[in-house]
């Protein structure tokens, strides 16, 4: 088990290096010029060139990547040339916000989705199954900007049950935060519900068809024991993998929801940095999302290994 984790961690190193190279290369080929976007369109070309030289933007790509990656590892993420603020605290703070939002949504929705999916799977082709499948699927197909706007209007503007913004005023107690998060988290839950429930249903249906479930039933075990002892553990494997792969997306891909609820998360930060040509900020935030994505997948793999002795002991 430890060897499995160690190997996966080791495996993350080349993945991260490759990801950082890709991110760096892509950010560098974004249209526009660093010096020009800082100095504005009326600055003389000479000044732009000088600034580019000062910033090192005229050196070869590989050299610049090396310098950047080295600094990054040392913890020196640079200063945003556009916002004139240090990159590291800005990115980590935004990332923190996003993790809280995504984490909140997942903690609420994963148990519900699994429960619904397993129920649907256990009563395959019944009215309950159809009902769960159709309703969760229809929630998933509503785009987050539609559900977000509707929810915002109904609960915040019309009924005034929940706040319009996603951030509590400064100085409010910690738990206040979750009250403010309810509204922005719901569109995310909608998106994830159908997906996770579907995987849980498919996993359950597949496991129920396995011969070892027949063995368990014909051993004369009570139904509850069959489900909890034999079905669930094996049925959860695909679901866990899917949840792991959803985490990265939930953290980095929430631009719309964050914008709608004025939530200063990493999605917003990435979009703004791209628009403003704030390369250090963009690179750092994308890389951090990649790191989180990998960590989430690692955790999912560990959970899968815990569920499956074959993987655990083969590791």
């Amino acid at each position, binding site marked *: 088990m430890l060897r499995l984790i160690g190997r996966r961690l080791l495996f993350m190193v080349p993945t991260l290096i490759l990801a950082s190279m890709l991110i760096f290369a892509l950010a560098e080929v974004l249209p526009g010029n660093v010096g020009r976007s800082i100095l504005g369109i009326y600055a003389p070309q000479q000044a732009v060139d000088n600034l580019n030289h000062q910033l090192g933007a005229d050196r070869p790509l590989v050299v610049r990547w090396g310098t950047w990656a080295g600094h990054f590892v040392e913890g020196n993420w640079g200063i945003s040339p556009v916002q004139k603020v240090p990159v590291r605290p800005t990115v980590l703070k935004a990332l923190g916000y996003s993790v809280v939002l995504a984490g909140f949504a997942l903690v609420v929705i994963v148990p519900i989705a699994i429960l619904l999916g397993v129920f649907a799977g256990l009563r395959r082709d019944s009215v309950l199954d159809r009902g769960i499948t159709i309703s969760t699927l229809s929630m998933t197909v509503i785009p987050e900007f539609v559900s977000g706007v509707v929810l915002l209007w109904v609960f915040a503007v019309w009924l005034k049950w929940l706040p319009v913004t996603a951030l509590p005023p400064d100085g409010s107690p910690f738990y206040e935060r979750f009250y403010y998060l309810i509204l922005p988290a719901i569109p995310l839950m909608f998106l994830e519900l159908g997906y996770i429930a579907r995987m849980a249903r498919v996993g359950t249906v597949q496991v129920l068809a396995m*011969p070892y479930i027949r*063995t368990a039933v014909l*051993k*004369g*075990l009570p139904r509850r024991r069959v489900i909890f002892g034999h079905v669930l553990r094996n049925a959860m494997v695909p679901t866990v993998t899917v949840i792991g792969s959803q985490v990265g997306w939930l953290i980095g891909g929430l631009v719309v929801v964050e914008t709608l609820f004025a939530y200063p998360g990493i999605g917003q930060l990435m979009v703004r940095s791209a628009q403003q040509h704030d390369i250090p900020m963009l690179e750092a935030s994308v890389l951090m999302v990649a790191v989180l994505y990998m960590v989430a997948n690692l955790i999912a793999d560990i959970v899968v290994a815990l569920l499956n002795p074959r993987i655990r002991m083969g590791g």
Partner: protein
Amino acid sequence: MSAVERPANAPEAAPAALDVRDLEVTFHRRGRDLPVLKGVTLRIEQGEAYGLVGESGCGKTTLAMAALRYLAANGTVDAGQVLVGGQDVSKLSEDAVRKWRGEQIAMVYQDPATALSPAMRIGDQVAEVFRYHEGMNKAEALERARESLRRVALPDPDSTLRRYPFELSGGQQQRVVIAMALAVNPHLLVLDEPTTGLDATVEAEILDLIEELRGRINAAILLITHNLGLVRRLCERVGVLYAGRVVEEGPARDIFTDPRHPYTMGLMRCVPRFGMNKTDAALQTIPGTLPALGEPLEGCVYSARCPMVKPVCVRREPDLFAWPGSSGAEGRAAAEAAPADPAAYSPHHANPVGEGPRHARCYFSAEVADMPHATPVLASSLEERGADAGDVLEIGNMSRTFKDGRKRLTAVNEVSLSLRRGETFGLVGESGSGKTTLAKCVTGLIAPDTGTVTFEGKQLKATAGRRSQDALRAIQMVFQNPDSTLNPAWSTRAILTRAVRKLGSGGSVRAKVDKLSADVRVEPRFLMQRPTDLSGGQKQRIAIARAFAGDPTLVVCDEPASALDVSVQASILNLLVELQTKEQVSYVFISHDLAVVRYISDRIGVMYLAELIEVGSAEEVFNPPHHPYTEALLSSIPTLNFDEKRTRIALRGTMPSLSDPPTGCRFHTRCHRILGDICVNQEPPVQEAVSGHTYQCHIPPDELLRLQTAAPAEQPVTSSEA
């Protein structure tokens, strides 16, 4: 009602272990009603072992599932009763069913690997039975589980308790399943193909175990299998099921020595008898296929495939007449006198007519012994197949090692062999002995680490990708499972067309495809269909046609008929023999079924732990003097011959790991003829029994011959077969 027909002396006081009366089970699929069991009546007395045979799709497993009240959701019991120990199964409440399963009736399954819960320790799985049936706490239940494992002779029960299913071998897994089934002493044990998929020696061990347990437990047995040898070894009575009908029933010995239904006769004729070879006799096949579920049948359910069918057979369905006796002839006279009514259904159809221990559903039981043989396809002699033209294939000193983590598994170790034109080289050995790896090295699917493959005088490149187009065309492969080797998205014509384009030698592609399908006897209409719409036998025929698309010189067949029913297996083997006679192709034929290998092969090689330990003509390898391992393998096959008194040689222990093979002779850890230190320390020499028949052993041929033809009592490690 059915009690009326029973012999008067039947003990009414003791209820039968299983009493099935007029059982009708129907599956409902896409709005259609598909009858699977059509009035089945059978009775298993307490402590009796009953074998239910028939090809897949006859309804054997459905009957077992009905007995366990575990039919699929779309299956219904329309009529009849199932009584287990006198208790009507349908009248049990949900709670009672739960207690009843396990305590009254238990089951052992075909594939032990999937029958055990993969993420639960063995101990917990066995202990579960005690916890929920006897209300024990975890510690007590584990203690009882340990006892159960000891009862099925699992080595080291303590460590087995802590293991997961994947850490056990197939034989050990099946022992665990048996231990679990017997945990709380059920009265009826259902064995559904309990040894299919296990190696011959493991199969023999499991059979020994079941036989031995029968002496100690009081459970009746319902054995479901297509393997007649298994039934003959374990069962007192046999029922033959065809298309949902019992067509013959009686004492095992009578049925197997003197079958009285054409289907039973057909089944027995299509299994190669032990010692039979393709040049002596052709395998009989059963023409046609099992009727599809729901297909309307006229008169006798078997009439469409019966070689002795007469008009009266389709006029009215025969009853289950007593044999010997006059009721069959009387029934026929009555059927001829009555108005024709092929669909007539009388209550007699379920229940035996007339007294006596055996019954057959046939008007012409008296004539079954002389049932005409289907047109035999005898193989031509080896010389006629062009064997004089010299060697086609030569493998020189081939080795191949795989890495598994830090371990190095040598799957093929310094194997050399040669193959002549038109010859069939049979490769036998237990799973994991390296047969398939060797085959893959020949076809270039994997590259050997060392050694050469010489084909028609030229040395081939190691991998298929680097071989010439001509070499690729000339060496083809047929795999065990046609389901996974034919592209399910393509029509069979498209599959064959592509093969002809890739491998063919020009000319009209369409004409070649038509010829290929005619050669493998697949009707043209099936060419339009996709593999999923074809039967297993048809799929394998298409796979064979594909291999023959480029007129190959050598075809490697890896268990080509093992997944098929016996009658289909016979027709596939006949097809291979026929193609060989016609095309002078050579085969490397891999199978774990020794009778099949003996039948189809000219020469045979025996592999044990990556080494080829014996090579010789089929006849010589299968007769003494031969390698002690070959001797043990042969002794483990269940046969149909009641008079043959054989001694089964039980191999000690389990197969050693390929990563750490034993020193000296690799077989010494399990050998029943071990001489002593010489076997442990010295690699055995290659001994020549007769010219062309060699084996690796320290015992010289004449000594080995003396030992192996001596009285069984002298053998050191044996268990006699009842």
